[in-house]
């Protein structure tokens, strides 16, 4: 069992790494790792998603669309395939291999991101995701809990209302005929909400007092953080001060993050069955961190130019640095851990069977 926060770290690293590069070799590697993890989580996958979109299907659709769209709207590049008549708006012009390639690569990036999130959706049950909501937002987490719990009850009530209205002669023929279905659902829901509020109050749930989180001090710190955020970003963009801008930006992020964290500490609340953080989780976070750091920041002695592969102006063979390829392995860690767990279990079962036969 991998802790939800570790999974979150993995998905973030995925997001970061995929956004940073358009090099088809690295992208290909990362996609292979995602596929591996997807297969490894199969026994764990909770059957929650009723409308699953297969990541493979998504990939096919998106890659095709992206390739074609970029190919026919961007008329830049040296390897001309053919030419569309110039009088056509937007579409008129040369269709180049480079444009197609760039569209293709973008599609691949999007598919990778989607596939990574699919893993997250499949492996984390709803309660685990709700638990990830920071303590400072406890009222929001309660609202989400209530909403999730009441979906089946609301559906059931909708069925009852539909039958009850049918029984008094109601037929659904046009849009207006949905009114006798929606209004009782709404009114019934509001009545239920009052009853629920009463029950919650009776069990000691008082309006959560996050007073200290919104004290003048906290608000001031947040404002400072926001200004730093904006400032740092503008520094990077407008005045090309990459490092300084980044530092200022991150300070802003830190200030705000710190305020949120402190606000969370003020909320008096404990957790009934906290999921323990194990060695596996450290491994996942470490692996994710290594990959993300390698792709995000420049390190002395490491030639990261192959990351910034760019098909324009001429389509060339992408560069490849073995260390960078190895760095992507950090994203494979969850798959390896889960597979080892599965093998352990299988091994244990097999051994028990053998022992029973003996």
């Amino acid at each position, binding site marked *: 069992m991998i802790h939800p926060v570790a999974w979150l770290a993995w998905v973030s690293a995925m997001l970061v790494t995929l956004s940073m590069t358009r090099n088809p070799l690295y992208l290909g590697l990362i996609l292979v790792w995602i596929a591996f993890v997807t297969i490894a989580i199969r026994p764990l996958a909770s059957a929650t998603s009723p409308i699953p979109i297969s990541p493979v299907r998504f990939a096919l659709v998106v890659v095709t669309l992206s390739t074609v769209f970029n190919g026919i709207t961007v008329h830049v590049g040296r390897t001309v395939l053919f030419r569309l008549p110039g009088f056509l708006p937007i579409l008129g012009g040369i269709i180049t291999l480079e444009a197609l390639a760039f569209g293709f690569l973008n599609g691949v990036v999007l598919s990778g991101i989607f596939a990574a999130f699919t893993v997250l959706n499949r492996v984390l049950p709803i*309660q685990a995701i709700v638990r990830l909501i920071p303590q400072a937002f406890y009222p929001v987490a309660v609202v989400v809990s209530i909403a999730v719990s009441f979906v089946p009850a609301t559906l059931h009530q909708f069925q*009852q209302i539909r039958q009850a209205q049918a*029984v008094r002669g109601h037929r659904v023929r046009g849009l207006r005929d949905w009114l006798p279905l929606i209004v009782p659902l709404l009114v019934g829901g509001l009545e239920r909400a009052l009853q629920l509020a009463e029950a919650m109050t009776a069990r000691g749930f008082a309006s959560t007092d996050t007073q200290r989180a919104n004290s003048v001090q906290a608000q001031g710190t947040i404002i400072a953080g926001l200004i730093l955020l904006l400032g740092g970003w503008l520094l990077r963009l407008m005045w090309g001060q990459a490092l300084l801008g980044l530092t200022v930006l991150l300070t802003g992020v830190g200030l705000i993050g710190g305020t949120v964290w402190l606000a969370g500490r003020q909320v008096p609340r404990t957790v009934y069955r906290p999921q323990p953080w194990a060695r596996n989780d450290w491994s996942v976070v470490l692996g994710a961190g290594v990959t993300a750091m390698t792709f995000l920041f420049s390190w002395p002695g490491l030639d990261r130019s192959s990351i910034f592969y760019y098909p324009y102006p001429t389509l060339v063979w992408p560069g490849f640095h073995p260390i960078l390829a190895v760095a992507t392995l950090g994203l494979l860690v969850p798959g390896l851990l889960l597979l080892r767990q599965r093998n352990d279990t299988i091994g244990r079962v097999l051994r028990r069977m053998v022992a029973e036969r003996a």
Partner: protein
Amino acid sequence: MITFNHVSYTYPDASQPALRQINLHLPEGEFTLVVGPSGAGKSTLLRCINGLVPHFSGGTIKGSISVNSLDPIQATPQVMSRHVGFVFQDPEAQFVVDRVEDEIAFALENAAMPPQEMRIRVEEVLDLLDLAALRQRRLDTLSGGERQRVAIAAALAFRPQVLVLDEPTSQLDPKSAEDVLQALVRLNSDLGLTILLAEHRLERVLPFVDRIVYLPSNGSEVISGPPREILPRIELNPPLVKLAQALNWEPLPLTIKEGRRLSQQWSEGKTFSPKQEVPTSQPDKPYLQAHNVEILYDNQPVVRGVDLKLWPGEIVALMGRNGAGKTTLLKSLVGLIRPKRGQITVANQDVAKSDVAQICRYVGYLPQDPNALLFADTVLDELLITLRNHGIQAGGSAGAISPQELLERLGLADKAHLYPRDLSTGERQRVALGAIMVTRPGALLLDEPTRGLDYLAKRRLLELLKSWRDDGMAILLVTHDVELAAAAADRVLLMSQGEVIANGTPGNVLGSSPLFAPQIARLFPNTGWLSVNDVLESLM
């Protein structure tokens, strides 16, 4: 212990006080039953104990209340929640999370209890309410009774000294209600927990109760005392007690066992001819016919090969265990569920060939939850909407009754312009009845119509049904309420596992059934008596 001292309370925007000068003292460790007609203020009284009144509801309160030397008016419900547990009526609107164990832990998490302590509390409460096997289940997969037990468990997680329950079994079937009440009895006798229960169904709980508190309908002059002392003074009695009062039996029996002793004494030396049941002559054509109906759910048969005939001018009660297929059968008669096999005709029309709206012009169907029907702004509008749905003009067109007349018959004429959802449970049910009866159907099907009704409302419903029956309507009601069936039905059908296993007069079907016999029948077996009137009539 709980003390009320000259307590008066008025809801915000209300013209009349809900409670007037209540004086009450309840010692510790007692199982107290709070009874009174609907709207008398029972709920308000109970909510005073944990501070929901006035903190949640607003309003003006006078007087003082003391609960184990705490003042709930000064202390907030949050503080009181540690000392008073509260369970509400609706099993569907009390839970925040979707698993049993997490729900119980929710209140504890919110109170910042250390995890070690939380685990102990959760385990002990799961054992107390016998929920250990259900701990990981999702709440929406549980039955109503199981859910109410979870609600009780959640209320007990803080180890309160008092447990207050506001009609916790009114939405439940008898078996579930029994489970819940037995759990309460155990809690009171084994743990010495002080319990206050507001309840309409007195029969099950009377033997275990130490005290009855009665609130008359004007919210004042509360009387309180041991059951045998209070019961003779109030009207809301189970048949056993009524009969005992009428025949002056002493001491007042609270259980069938006590009643049997007295009834045997009383019957000694008297001979009775068994009650003659005059078979009602039936007109030729049944209004509603079902032949060989088979219904599947999830590919499992729920109703197997049922034959049913409903004649005009009779009331038929359809009874049976939970899950026997009663509601499913009822729904198929109006086309809400399509049977796999079989033929159903209503007023000479084949149900399979029409849609529900068409069928319901000729058959009225009252669902279990009449609230699902109500959405208009006034009572009168509800009736007019049905007419509009069917395309009938609201002014004395052939076949339709005038809405005003119907409202008068239902006793709602003075409420014609009120918002339906603000009315009491019984009144809302009657509005729903109006909405389905306005097309003057020849038959009426009711699904568990007495759930949540007090004795008075039940009686009114009974009178209404009987008057419609006398006008020639065919009425079929699904019910668990044995006394209602005994009082109202001309015929009783018993269903079990999807089949009709008995069909006959109430005396025949209910009289000797160990499960379904009404109280009077249990007192006097083999006499054919089902109600107090039967006994009293035989004396003349």
